């Protein structure tokens, strides 16, 4: 099946600096419909009925989130667009923001009507600073046309922290604090930014909204699987000949996506970033959806020359660096895991390391405060499950090295030398 470009539809077709080119392609029609012909409750029920879910990874019902925020008590309500795309292998939001900034502004404008927010923020990661001007320009043009009378939109730049893509850390960051995760509950729709009801939606989620308002919930929910409706934008990289952004109907299989991107000789695929699942080639026919594997839609292909333990070591290096340090399971767990993978890599692994990895991973998944620590266990457990022989080979090599070197601690490089 070919791509189905809905969210990506305007990318390349509109001039991202000109609101007129967006309007010429039917832009802001959904906003007018929502503003003039629908009540907030009607907007929310349409989004709820469509089955739209969060595209950032968690997959929570967008309509339900909006409804909770709408019904929550608070003097102010805030709307935040999470554009802190930091997940390893994810670049779809950058593509969307630079190709169709007005699509996001329209999505925000409609969400603002739905929950009666007067202030919205776009939390943009600092690494994407070069898009800030484009976004600010798009907001200014929409305001000039009178489309943002109900709500101000401010672009808030992050300062370099992966964890700020986690919604509670993101709110702490806007409040001028360290970007550490908060305890939940309360959840943001009850108590979010400055303790007020807040909704936080991913860029791609919000960009689906105008399409749903225009074409209706039934059109949207006809696509996808039981719990994952619509399309998903994937970022594909690694061992593929055509890396890039692809949009497929939810439930399309991994093999199809990899073929589009020109993957060959695939040995493993990491789906969902550094803290995502690592799947063997035998699972390429798995449909991609919230029910199976999806995350933020990052897909990194590894061919048969790649070493899985090196890949997981790389993942853990990242997760350990980016752990915010607030909760012990994540702060200490990623540290110890990184150390173990370092030993496996340098040729000093032991059989008992595998049991330790599994124990740690299970404890972190169960006890970490937020998604980072909980999901850090995923690549470890997946690789142990699907690539156990790679670990055993490494450990056998380590045994050999130790006996060869008389029990002294050397790295493989030193031994070869």
């Amino acid at each position: 099946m070919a791509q189905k470009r809905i969210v990506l539809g305007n990318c390349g077709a509109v001039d991202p600096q000109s609101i007129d080119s967006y309007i010429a392609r039917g832009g802001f029609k959904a906003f007018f419909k929502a503003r003039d012909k629908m009540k907030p409750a009607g907007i929310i029920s349409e989004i709820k009925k469509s089955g739209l879910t969060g595209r950032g990874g968690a997959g929570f019902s967008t309509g339900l989130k909006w409804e909770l925020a709408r019904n929550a008590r608070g003097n102010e309500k805030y709307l935040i667009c999470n554009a802190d795309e930091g997940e390893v292998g994810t670049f779809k939001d950058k593509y969307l923001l630079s190709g169709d900034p007005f699509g996001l502004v329209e999505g925000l404008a409609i969400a603002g009507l739905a929950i009666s927010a007067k202030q919205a923020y776009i939390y943009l990661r600092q690494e994407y600073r070069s898009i800030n001007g484009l976004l600010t320009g798009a907001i200014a043009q929409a305001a000039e046309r009178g489309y943002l009378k109900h709500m101000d939109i401010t672009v808030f730049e992050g300062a370099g922290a992966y964890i700020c893509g986690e919604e509670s850390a993101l709110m702490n960051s806007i409040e001028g604090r360290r970007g550490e995760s908060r305890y939940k509950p309360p959840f943001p729709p009850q108590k979010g930014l400055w303790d007020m009801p807040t909704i936080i939606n991913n860029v791609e989620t919000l960009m689906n909204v105008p399409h749903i308002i225009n074409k209706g919930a039934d059109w949207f929910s006809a696509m996808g699987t039981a719990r994952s409706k619509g399309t998903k934008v994937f970022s594909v990289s690694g061992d593929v000949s055509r890396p890039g952004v692809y949009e497929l109907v939810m439930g399309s299989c991994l093999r199809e996506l990899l073929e589009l991107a020109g993957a060959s000789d695939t040995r493993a695929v990491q789906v969902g970033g550094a803290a995502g699942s690592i799947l063997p080639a035998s699972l390429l026919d798995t449909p991609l959806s919230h029910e199976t594997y999806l995350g933020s839609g990052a897909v990194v292909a590894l061919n048969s020359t790649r070493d899985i333990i090196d890949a997981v070591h790389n993942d853990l290096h990242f997760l350990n660096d980016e752990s915010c340090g607030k909760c012990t399971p994540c702060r200490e767990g990623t540290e110890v895991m990184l150390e173990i993978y370092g030993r496996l890599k340098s040729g000093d692994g032991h059989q008992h390391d595998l049991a330790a990895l599994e124990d740690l991973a299970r404890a972190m998944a169960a006890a970490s405060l937020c998604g980072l620590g909980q999901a850090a266990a995923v690549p470890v457990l997946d690789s142990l499950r699907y690539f156990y022989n790679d670990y055993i080979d490494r450990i056998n090599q380590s045994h050999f090295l130790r006996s060869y070197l008389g029990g002294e601690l050397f790295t493989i490089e030193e031994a070869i030398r």
Partner: protein
Amino acid sequence: MANKKEQGNGRAGLLPALKEQAGSSGCLERGAMSAVCGRLGLPLNEAFGVATFYSFLPVSPVGKNVIRACRCLPCDLKDAGAVIAAIRQELGIGPGQATPDGKFSFELVGCIGACDQAPAIMINDRVYGELTAAKVAGILKSY
């Protein structure tokens, strides 16, 4: 209302103010952080706590141009190691260091969202993708 007040003139201004300061002076020195805190009515430790959390708010000196080389999986698969080695060789410094003339500093970072152009680096706000070791010298010379 306390929330509103905090939002208006205190905490919420901290990150943008520190970013602005770091943008103009490179590194956040104690005096500068102290001035920001004085203006916002916050104790100095708040600024230090926030600054040390974020990677774009350096508290020790950085070069005029900051090179950030991605070493995450997608870049690593496309031989980011060779690019990192070339930067190291060209500048004579390792990650975490600055050149003696203060022109460059060099860091290894997490994903910069340019995996489709891997291996990629950022110099200041600009992304350079599809790099090879051979391209590094030319790019650095343009600074």
